[in-house]
């Protein structure tokens, strides 16, 4: 028996508790622009202290949903509750919500300090307290040095920090982030991702972020919602979404997936056998697909869960023969594109480059066998 490392049972997350009360409740919200539905009957619960990401391609309605939470758009149907209070028709300036805009929307005629103080000035907070809190906020985002600068005199990263300080200073119930890192270059973006999460955890605020960058959403979120054409297709932790997508759309959208279609041959509570349309061997899966025998089904396997070998696997199931069409060397990993024998289907497999000088064992035009573990197959009916 394989010895497994002991996993500490983590305390239940907010959304896992049976009695948990959602902090933000979006109930059947719809929004139309010029007669076209942009958001279609979305219902979503978000809990206190979460870092929730709305992820989807452009035009999927994620920004509109965020703007409805901010009060910048009014839903045509449905309700939005924040901390139990109906906010559906409360104007933006009365909501306990602050947003960081994609363009940052810093006031160009004010200094960094004045920009950050703006929200408190509107609240009528005493001057000495404003000064105090502004200093603290600027310190939090490491912008004390630039307090007297104008936005035009700042770099992209500094502007982003200034905008962040401005939307955190009122300690809003929800912080909304609209593509917060899209304007930063790659290195800075990766660095800022962790920083944002640290700040969020430190302040214990609830963050809702809109992004089209799945890597960003995966790194930062406690949970994420995958959106498509005005609907939320799946809600879950990054791990759940990646390993257990509930539809072909989600599987295809997050990361890379090799998706095959097939017919269910055998279905049992602990395994499923699928006869694929384009692979000669049958696929054995270690779980029930909850589909009847004879039903059409899609199965999906991640590239990093596919093995490549020149030797024919001994198993009866779960392999296919093909020819290496292309190899992409990415540094840390290499991606092999394998064309399956007798088809035009290209399977993507990812192998780590564990040594520096290895003459690759497998090269272009080689005949290879790809195979995978029965545990690593996802079945998709939707």
């Amino acid at each position, binding site marked *: 028996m394989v010895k497994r490392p002991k996993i500490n049972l983590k305390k239940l997350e907010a959304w896992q508790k049976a009695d948990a009360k959602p902090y933000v409740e979006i109930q059947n919200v719809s929004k139309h622009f010029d007669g076209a539905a942009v958001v279609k009957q979305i219902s979503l619960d978000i809990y206190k202290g979460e870092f929730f990401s709305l992820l989807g391609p452009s035009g999927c309605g994620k920004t509109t949903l965020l703007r409805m939470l*901010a*009060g*910048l758009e009014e839903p045509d149907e449905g309700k939005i509750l924040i901390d139990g209070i109906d906010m559906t028709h409360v*104007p*933006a*300036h*009365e909501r306990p*919500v*602050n*947003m960081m*805009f994609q*363009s940052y*929307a*810093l*006031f*160009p*005629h004010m200094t960094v300090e004045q920009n950050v103080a*703006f*929200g408190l000035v*509107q*609240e009528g907070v005493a001057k000495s307290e404003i000064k105090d809190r502004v200093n603290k906020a600027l310190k939090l985002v490491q912008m004390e040095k630039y307090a007297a600068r104008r936005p035009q005199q700042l770099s992209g990263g500094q502007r982003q920090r200034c905008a962040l300080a*401005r*939307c955190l200073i*009122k300690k809003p119930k929800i912080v909304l982030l609209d593509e917060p890192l899209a304007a930063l270059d790659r290195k800075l973006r990766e660095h800022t991702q962790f920083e944002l999460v640290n700040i969020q955890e430190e302040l214990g605020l609830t963050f809702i972020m809109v992004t089209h960058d799945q890597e960003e959403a995966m790194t930062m979120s406690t949970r994420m919602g995958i959106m498509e054409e005005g609907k939320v297709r799946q809600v879950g932790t990054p791990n759940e979404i990646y390993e257990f997508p509930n539809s072909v759309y989600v599987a295809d959208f997050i990361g890379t997936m090799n998706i095959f279609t097939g017919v269910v041959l055998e279905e049992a509570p602990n395994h499923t056998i699928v006869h694929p349309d384009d692979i000669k061997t049958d696929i054995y899966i270690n779980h029930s697909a909850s589909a009847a025998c004879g039903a059409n089904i899609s199965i999906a396997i991640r590239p990093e869960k596919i093995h490549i070998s020149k030797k024919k696997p001994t198993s009866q199931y779960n392999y296919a023969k093909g020819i290496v069409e292309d190899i992409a060397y990415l540094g840390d990993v290499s991606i092999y594109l394998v064309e399956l024998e007798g088809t035009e289907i290209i399977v993507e497999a990812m192998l780590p480059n564990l040594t520096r000088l290895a003459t690759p064992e497998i090269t272009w035009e080689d005949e290879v066998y790809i195979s995978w573990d029965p545990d690593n197959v996802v079945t998709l009916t939707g």
Partner: protein
Amino acid sequence: MIFKNKTDWMLWGKRLVIFIPLAWLLLFVLFPFLNIFKISFSEPYPGMPPYASILTLLDDQVIQLRLTLENYTLIFTDAIYHYSLINSILVAGSATIICLFLGYPMAYYIARQEERRQTHFLLLVILPFWTSFLLRVYAWVGILSPKGLLNNFLINWGIISKPILFLNSNFGTLIGMVYCYLPFMILPLFSALAKFDVQLLEAAADLGARPVKTFLRVTLPLTKAGILSGCVMVFIPAMGEFVIPELLGGNKTLMLGKLIWIEFFSNRDWPVASAIAVIMLLAFIVPIIALQKRALR
């Protein structure tokens, strides 16, 4: 000229591009002004031109320079000049303020339209320029006169029983000025408002500012440049305006522009007229432009 290479050629091209406007300004702004400046220090003289030359050749060796400050002392001591100065500031100032309050909402509205409608509205704003300025002011005589369009309308509807004397008053002048100069206010305001990022309004609202506060603390400061140039473009020409006070203000409205005309043509006193012009330029236009530059920094 032989150009050795492309860079030389481009350099000369650049110089030429700068030279044309510079030459234009020298020829049509600076030289005429220097001439006026010179005349303002000379004495009136019956004849043509109606002022004495400031340089005379006494004999072969000596050139006499005769300058007088009398024209300026007259302006500073005679009450009629004070009166017309104050009246000019009052009328031009009121016209500017009214234009601002009318023009700002109009420019705001136009700037918030989609691009095609913007063009239509802007076309409407500048449409009056297709007709001669003089003709349009004359049209207002027809509207404002005791038996004109406006009085007839008010009497027919029973709002007034006797015609109101709109013409020959500061009021008539003011109406004419607001009408004529409104486009000069709307256009710079529009360009400032069109550049204005609407997302800033959303950011202000999101941070808890009511619409009025947002306007005062975000929109207004960020369109300051447009407001200032609009005001300058209305106030300065209004100060020197001659046609409108002449046709709509009658002899009851004395403004600097009209005064200069009277001094030049009725009194044939070119030196005094020039002195008024010089004072106007130095006392108003230069400080206003300086102020505008400073405010925009």
